[in-house]
C-alpha cells in the first residue's frame, strides 16, 4: 500500500522555490525540481542545441547532488498523475519521473476513461519533451526577443485592432480544458476576439448528424463492450477513430475467451482500404469507398423493411456485396439492442443513416449512450472560412497547423500573411508558425498545468513533471498576461475548480484538500444527467434521398486515412512513431498509395513504383484487401518546415482533400493513375505475407471452439506427447517468469512496441536502415495474410524473445554473453558480447537485434555515430531509462522481459517482507497494451494468471515442435465466422 502513496506523490505539497532567473512579473511555478538541478537541466538543454558528436560517456557529465533535495531519491522513480491529450486522443497517465526527468508514461489504473493501457502515441510523447527543435525563446520575425517586449507589442496592437473594430481571430485546436475555455471566453471578451476551433481531421459531420437526428450536438459514448454484433463501415475505431484506446479495451473484453463469459462478439467490417480495425474483423467485406452511402442505405432499407419502417429506394451496391450484407442484416436483426453500427465517414448524411440504423436496432441508450459525451472534435470547417473570408486584423494561432493540413492551404497562408498581427503559440516550428510575425514558444504537456474534460463529467488535471526546459510559456499564461490578469495560471485553475467542481462533490470539505486529493487521483468524476434526445425520423428520408442523388464518378477514389501511430501528423515529427511499422502494411517512415493487387497487375505496378495521382507523386504499395477502385493514402506525412532535413519523409496528402458543402471530404473521386517510372524503396519490415501453411498463428472458429476449446491447436498436445529430450530440464526453484499472449485480444495497435522502445532505450535507426532490415525494436507484430489475395484474412502475432529454456541462441555464444538465469530468463550481458551474431542466426524466431552501427553514441570509437533522428544529443538523451544500459555498437540486444522491472519489484517486495503478488509486476508491453492481450507472471505459481493461461487448451508455443521450450505462450485466435 505504500506503493500507492508513492504513485500519488504530488508537487503541491512542497514549498515553492524562488528562482530569480525567471522573468519578472510571472508567478513561479511550483516545481519538483531543485534550483540546482534546474540549472543543470537548463544548461544541458541549451548546450545540446548544437550537434555534439562527442564520444564521452553521458555519465561523465552527471553532476552529483551537493545537497540532495528531499523529494528525490536517486535511483528511485516517482509517479505523477497527469493526462495526455493531443487533438484527437486522450489518456489518463502516470508520469514516471527519475531524477527530475519524466522518462515514461504509464496508464493510470484508477482512470475511469482509460484504465487499461495507452496508445503508442502516448508512449512516444515523452520523447517530444526532449525535442531539440523546440523554440527556445519568443521570436519576432525570426529574431529572438524577450517576453516583456513581445507582450508589450502584442497587447498594444491587439488593443488598437480592437479599437479599430478589426476582427481578431484566435484559432485553436479543440479545447477540452474547462478552465481554458473560460479563460478564452474572457480573452475574447476583452479583445473582441473570435474564437475558432479547428481539427486537422474533423468530425463535424457526426455532430451535425446527431443534431439532425437526435437534436443534440454531441458525440455519444459508444459501448463496444456491450455489442454482440459490431458493424463498422469504414470506421477504424481500434486505431484512429474517436477514442481508440478506450474502444480497444472495450472491444478486447468481448474478444476474451479466457477471462470472459465466453460470449464472443461478431465484428463485421465493410471498408475499402485495409484498416487496423478491418484487419481484426471476423468478417471483412471489401467495398468501394464510393459505395459507403449505398451500403448504409441498403442496410437501413433491409432492416427497415424487416421492422416495418419506411424504406426509400436507393441504388443497391454491387451484387457480390449485397449477398454478404444480407448476412450482416440477419445478424444485426438477431441482436437488437446489443449491436452497434458505426461509420467512419464524416459525411453527415451517412451518419444520419447510421443513427437511423442504430435507432431501428434499439441501440440508442444501450450501446450508444448520451450520458458522458465526448468533448473533443469541436472544430468545424467554419473556423477556417472565417479566417480566410473575414480579413482579420490579428490572427493568434495556437498549436494548429492549417497551412499544412488544410486543402486550402494557399488561402490560409494569404490570410495570415495579410493580417497586420499574426501570433503563433507553439512548441515547435511548423508550416504555420513560420508565417507568423510573433512566435511564442509553449512548453510540452509534461511541463504544464492544465485540466481536461474529455468526457462530460470526468475532469482530469495535468501537472508538470519537469521544469520548463526552454524559455517557454503556456498559451494560457500568455492570455492571462495580455489581459493584464496578474494571477497565475495555476491559481486560475484552482479557483475555477474551487468554484465549479468543489460544490459538485461532497467527499472533501476543504477546497485545498479537494484540490490535492484530485491531483493525486488525476481525475474527478461528477454526476451527470444524460442529454435528452428525441429521434427525428424525417432526417433519414432526407439523407437517403441525398444518397440517392450521389453521382458515381469515373476513375479511382482516393481516401485519406490516418496511420495508427502517425495520426494527423500534428506535433513534432516523432522518430519513435515513425520507426514503428504500420501494423497493416508493415511499412515505417513513409506513406504510400495503397492499391489493390488487381489494379497492380493491370497497371503493372510493383511495390515502390512511384505513381502520379493528380498533383501528388507517391510510391505505390500493393495492399491485399484493398478495393479495386479506391486508393488509400495516409495523411500526416510530408511535413517540411521545422523538421530537420534528414527526418523529412513521405508526401503531404492533405491537399487532396476537398471542401464541399461546408465540410471537408477525405474521400475524393475521379483520379487516374500515371506511372512516373521512378522507384522508391520503402522501409518495409516484412517482405513475406504468407505463413506458408505453417502453424505459426493458430486459429479456429467460434463454433469449433465451443465444441472443443483446443480446436485449431490439436497439434499442441500431439507435439507435447512427442517431446523427447536427451537431457533433463533444469529446475527453476524460485520464480519462473512467463508470458502469455492472447492472440484473440491483440489488435496490433503497436503500443507495446513503443512502450518497449521507451522503457528499454531502443535506438532509432532511420528509414535507410529499416530498409536494410536493421530495425532494432524488441517486439515486432508479425502480420500474415491468409486466403483470398483480394480480401485476405489477417492474423497477427506479437513476437519478442521467447525466453526459451532450451534456447538455441545461448548454446552457441562463444563468450557466454547470453545464458539462462535461475528464473528462466534468457539474459544478455552486453558488456561481454563481442557481436558474432551467431545467436541471432541460430534463433528460430529471429528476435535478436544487433547494433549495426553506433546508433546510440555509446561506442568508444569517435566520429562514427549514426544518428538519423538526432536522438543522441544531450537533450534527447535525457529520455533514457537509467535502469537500462544503452548498448554500444556491435552488441546484440533483445527483449529482457523488462528485467529491470522484475528486479525492482522483487526488491520492493523483499524490503516489505512479502511475496510478490501476481500482476504486480508488469513489463512495459503488458502495461501499455490497451486490450490486455499480454499477461506476465510467475509460472511456478500455480495460481498466477499466466500459469492458468498456459494451461488453457488454447495455449501453444511458437515453433514448439523444435523443443525450444519457450516461456512465451500464445492463445489461439478464434474468429467468429462460420
Amino acid at each position, binding site marked *: 500500500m505504500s506503493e500507492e502513496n508513492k504513485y500519488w506523490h504530488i508537487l503541491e505539497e512542497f514549498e515553492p522555490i524562488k528562482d530569480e532567473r525567471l522573468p519578472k512579473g510571472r508567478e513561479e511555478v511550483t516545481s519538483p525540481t531543485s534550483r540546482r538541478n534546474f540549472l543543470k537541466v537548463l544548461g544541458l538543454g541549451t548546450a545540446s542545441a548544437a550537434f555534439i558528436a562527442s564520444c564521452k560517456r553521458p555519465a561523465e557529465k552527471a553532476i552529483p547532488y551537493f545537497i540532495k533535495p528531499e523529494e528525490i531519491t536517486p535511483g528511485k522513480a516517482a509517479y505523477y498523475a497527469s493526462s495526455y491529450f493531443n487533438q484527437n486522443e486522450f489518456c489518463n497517465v502516470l508520469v514516471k519521473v527519475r531524477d527530475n526527468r519524466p522518462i515514461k508514461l504509464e496508464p493510470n489504473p484508477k482512470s475511469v476513461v482509460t484504465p487499461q493501457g495507452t496508445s503508442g502515441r502516448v508512449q512516444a510523447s515523452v520523447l517530444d519533451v526532449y525535442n531539440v527543435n523546440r523554440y527556445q525563446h519568443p521570436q519576432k520575425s525570426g529574431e529572438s526577443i524577450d517576453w516583456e517586449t513581445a507582450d508589450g507589442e502584442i497587447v498594444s496592437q491587439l488593443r488598437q485592432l480592437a479599437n479599430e473594430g478589426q476582427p481578431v481571430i484566435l484559432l485553436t485546436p479543440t479545447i477540452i480544458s474547462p478552465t481554458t475555455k473560460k479563460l478564452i471566453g474572457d480573452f475574447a471578451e476583452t479583445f473582441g476576439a473570435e474564437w475558432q476551433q479547428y481539427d486537422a481531421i474533423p468530425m463535424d459531420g457526426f455532430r451535425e448528424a446527431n443534431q439532425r437526428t437526435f437534436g443534440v450536438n454531441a458525440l455519444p459514448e459508444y459501448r463496444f463492450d456491450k455489442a454482440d454484433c459490431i458493424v463498422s463501415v469504414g470506421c477504424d475505431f481500434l486505431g484512429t477513430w474517436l477514442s481508440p484506446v478506450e474502444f480497444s479495451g472495450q472491444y478486447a473484453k468481448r474478444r476474451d475467451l479466457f477471462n470472459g463469459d465466453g460470449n464472443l462478439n461478431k465484428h463485421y467490417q465493410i471498408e475499402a482500404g485495409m484498416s487496423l480495425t478491418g484487419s481484426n474483423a471476423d468478417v471483412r467485406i471489401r467495398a468501394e469507398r464510393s459505395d459507403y452511402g449505398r451500403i448504409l442505405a441498403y442496410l437501413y432499407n433491409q432492416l427497415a423493411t424487416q421492422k416495418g419502417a419506411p424504406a426509400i429506394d436507393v441504388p443497391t451496391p454491387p451484387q457480390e456485396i449485397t449477398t454478404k450484407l444480407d448476412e450482416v442484416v440477419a445478424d444485426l436483426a438477431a441482436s437488437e439492442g446489443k449491436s452497434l453500427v458505426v461509420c467512419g465517414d464524416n459525411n453527415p448524411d451517412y451518419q444520419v443513416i447510421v443513427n437511423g440504423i442504430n435507432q431501428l436496432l434499439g441501440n440508442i441508450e444501450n450501446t450508444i449512450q448520451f450520458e458522458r459525451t465526448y468533448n473533443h472534435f469541436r472544430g468545424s470547417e467554419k473556423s477556417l472560412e472565417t479566417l480566410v473570408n473575414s480579413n482579420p486584423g490579428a490572427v493568434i494561432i495556437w498549436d494548429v497547423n492549417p497551412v499544412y493540413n488544410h486543402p486550402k492551404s494557399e488561402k490560409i497562408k494569404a490570410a495570415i500573411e495579410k493580417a497586420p498581427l499574426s501570433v503563433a503559440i507553439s512548441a515547435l516550428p511548423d508550416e504555420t508558425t513560420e508565417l507568423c510575425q510573433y512566435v511564442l514558444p509553449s512548453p510540452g504537456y509534461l511541463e504544464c498545468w492544465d485540466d481536461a474534460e474529455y468526457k462530460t463529467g470526468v475532469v482530469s488535471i495535468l501537472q508538470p513533471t519537469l521544469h520548463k526546459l526552454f524559455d517557454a510559456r503556456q498559451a494560457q499564461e500568455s492570455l492571462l498576461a495580455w489581459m493584464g490578469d496578474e494571477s497565475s495560471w495555476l491559481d486560475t485553475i484552482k479557483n475555477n475548480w474551487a468554484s465549479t467542481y468543489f460544490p459538485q462533490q461532497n467527499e472533501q470539505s476543504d477546497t485545498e484538500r479537494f484540490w490535492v486529493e484530485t491531483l493525486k487521483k488525476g481525475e474527478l468524476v461528477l454526476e451527470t444527467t444524460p442529454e435528452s434526445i428525441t429521434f427525428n425520423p424525417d432526417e433519414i428520408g432526407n439523407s437517403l434521398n441525398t444518397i440517392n442523388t450521389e453521382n458515381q464518378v469515373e476513375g479511382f477514389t482516393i481516401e485519406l486515412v490516418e496511420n495508427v501511430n502517425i495520426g494527423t501528423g500534428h506535433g513534432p515529427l516523432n522518430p519513435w512513431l515513425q520507426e514503428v511499422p504500420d501494423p497493416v502494411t508493415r511499412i515505417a517512415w513513409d506513406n504510400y498509395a495503397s492499391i489493390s493487387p488487381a489494379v497492380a497487375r493491370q497497371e503493372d505496378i510493383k511495390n515502390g513504383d512511384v505513381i502520379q495521382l493528380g498533383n501528388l507523386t507517391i510510391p505505390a504499395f500493393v495492399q491485399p484487401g484493398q478495393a479495386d477502385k479506391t486508393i488509400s493514402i495516409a495523411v500526416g506525412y510530408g511535413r517540411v518546415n521545422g523538421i530537420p532535413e534528414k527526418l523529412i519523409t513521405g508526401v503531404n496528402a492533405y491537399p487532396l482533400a476537398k471542401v464541399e458543402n461546408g465540410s471537408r471530404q477525405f474521400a475524393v473521386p475521379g483520379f487516374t493513375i500515371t506511372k512516373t517510372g521512378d522507384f522508391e524503396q520503402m522501409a518495409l519490415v516484412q517482405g513475406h505475407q504468407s505463413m506458408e501453411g505453417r502453424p505459426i498463428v493458430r486459429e479456429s472458429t467460434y463454433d469449433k471452439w465451443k465444441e472443443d476449446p483446443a480446436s485449431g491447436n490439436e497439434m499442441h498436445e500431439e*507435439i507435447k506427447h*512427442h*517431446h*523427447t*529430450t*536427451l*537431457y533433463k530440464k533444469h529446475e527453476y526453484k524460485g520464480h519462473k517468469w512467463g508470458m502469455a499472449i492472447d492472440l484473440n485480444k491483440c489488435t496490433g495497435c503497436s503500443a507495446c512496441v513503443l512502450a518497449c522502445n521507451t522503457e528499454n532505450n531502443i535506438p532509432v535507426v532511420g528509414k535507410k536502415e529499416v530498409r536494410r532490415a536493421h530495425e532494432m525494436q524488441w517486439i515486432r507484430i508479425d502480420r500474415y495474410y491468409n486466403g483470398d489475395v483480394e480480401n485476405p484474412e489477417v492474423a497477427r502475432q506479437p513476437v519478442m524473445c521467447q525466453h526459451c529454456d*532450451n534456447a*538455441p541462441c545461448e*548454446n552457441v555464444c562463444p563468450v557466454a554473453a547470453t545464458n539462462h538465469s535461475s528464473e528462466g530468463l534468457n539474459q544478455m550481458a552486453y558488456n561481454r558480447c563481442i557481436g558474432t551474431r551467431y545467436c541471432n542466426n541460430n534463433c528460430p524466431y529471429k528476435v535478436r537485434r544487433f547494433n549495426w552501427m553506433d546508433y546510440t553514441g555509446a561506442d568508444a570509437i569517435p566520429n562514427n555515430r549514426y544518428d538519423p533522428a538526432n536522438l543522441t544529443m544531450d537533450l534527447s538523451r535525457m529520455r533514457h531509462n537509467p535502469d537500462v544500459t544503452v548498448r554500444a555498437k556491435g552488441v546484440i540486444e533483445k527483449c529482457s522481459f523488462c528485467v529491470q522491472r522484475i528486479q525492482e519489484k522483487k526488491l520492493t517486495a523483499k524490503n516489505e517482507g512479502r511475496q510478490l503478488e501476481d500482476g504486480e509486476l508488469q513489463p512495459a508491453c503488458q502495461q501499455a497494451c490497451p486490450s490486455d492481450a499480454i499477461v506476465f507472471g510467475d509460472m511456478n505459481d500455480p495460481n498466477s494468471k499466466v500459469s492458468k493461461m498456459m494451461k488453457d487448451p488454447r495455449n501453444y508455443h511458437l515453433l514448439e*515442435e*523444435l*523443443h525450444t521450450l519457450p516461456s512465451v505462450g500464445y492463445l489461439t485466435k478464434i474468429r467468429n465466422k462460420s
Partner: protein
Amino acid sequence: MEKQNIPEPVPFKFGKKLKTYLGIAAGIGLLALLIAVFVQQLPSERIWANLWMNALMFLFLGLGALFFWTVNTLGESTWQINFQRVMESMGLTIPFAAIFFVLAFPGLKDLFEWTHTEHLDRILQEKTPYLNMPFWMVRFAVYFILWSFFAWYLRKISVKNDFEPHDKYLGRLRATSGWFIVFFAISSSTAAWDWLMSIDAHWFSTLYGWYIFSGMFVAAIAVIILITIAFKKFNILPNVNKEHLHDLGKYLFGFSIFWAYLWLSQYLLIWYSNIPEETVYYVERVNNYKTLFYMNLIINFVVPFFALMTRGSKRQPLYLAIVSLVVLLGHYLDLYLAIMPGAVGHENASIGLLEIGLPFFYLAVFLTLFFISFGKAKPVPENHPYAIESSSYENI
C-alpha cells in the same frame, strides 16, 4: 625390414575336418533358432529381427570386402595383391546374402512400421512414394543384382589374368571397379535407409548411410584380417608378411576412428539441437539400452584405438587377430542397436540364446561359401603387373 624365409605355399583344400567344424557351427545356430521358436516361443518380431540382423551382417562382410578390393584397385594401390583373393572370395558371398534376406521377408511386417499401410500417420503417409513395398522390392532386387554382378565379373577378370595375362585386364578391372564404386556410393546409403533407417520410420539422419557403411567396412576388414592371418599361419598365403598385417591393422585402426567420428558427428549434432523428431532415436537407446549403448562405443572405438595405437601391435598376428575379433563382435552389437530398439522394442529385446547362437549358423554358411570360392582359384593372383610391389614394401 626383417628377413624372413618364405616357406613354400600350401595349396588350399576345403578339408573334411573344416567341413565338420562348420557343420557343427551351423547346427548350433539352427538349434538356437529352433529352441527360440518352439521352446522359448519368443515373440515373432524378435525372431525376424534376428534373421534380419544376421542377413545384414552376412551381407556386410562380403560387400565390405568387395568395396575394399575395388577401392584399392581403383586407387592403383598394390600392397593388397598378396591377399586379394580373400577379398574376391568374400565378395562372392553377396548373392547368397539375398537368400537370407528373402528368408526373412515374411517378417517384414513385424520389422517395418511403414508396411502397415492401413494406419499410417501423416508423416509416414507422405513417405509412401519412397517407402512402399513394390518400390522397396525393386530396389532390393537392383542392389543385389548389380552387387552380385560386379562381384562375379571382377572376380572373373581377375582370375582370367592368371591364365592369359594381359595388361587390358588390369584396365578393365579398374574401370569396372570405378563403376562399382559409383553404384556402391549411392546404393550403400539407400540400402541402409531401406533396410535399417526405415525401421524407425519417422526418424531420419542424412549421415546414416555413411555411418552404416563405416561400420560395415570395419567389420569386413576385421574378417579379412582374421582370414588372412589364418591363411598365413597355414602357409596358404605365405607371401603375406607383417607389412600387410601392419597395413590391415592401420585400416582397422583408422576406420574404427572414422566410425567413431561419424558416430560422434551424428550423436553430437542430434544431442546438441535436441529436436524431438531426431532425438527420439537416441532417447530410446540411451534410456533403455544404456549399457549396450556405451559398450558399443567402447568396443568399437576405445578398444581398437588403444590396442592398435602402437606399431608393434599391428605386426603381432595373434594380437591383431584378437582385436579384430573383438571389433567384429562390436559391430555386431552396433547392428543390434540399430535394429532391435525399433523393430522389437526394449520390452522384448534381450541378448539370449538366439542372439548368441544364430550367428554361428550364418558364419558357418559364410565360411563354407568363402572356402568353396577360394578353392576355385589360385590363392594369389598370378601375372599381376604390380605383383612385385606387394611383396617388397615396408612401413616406416
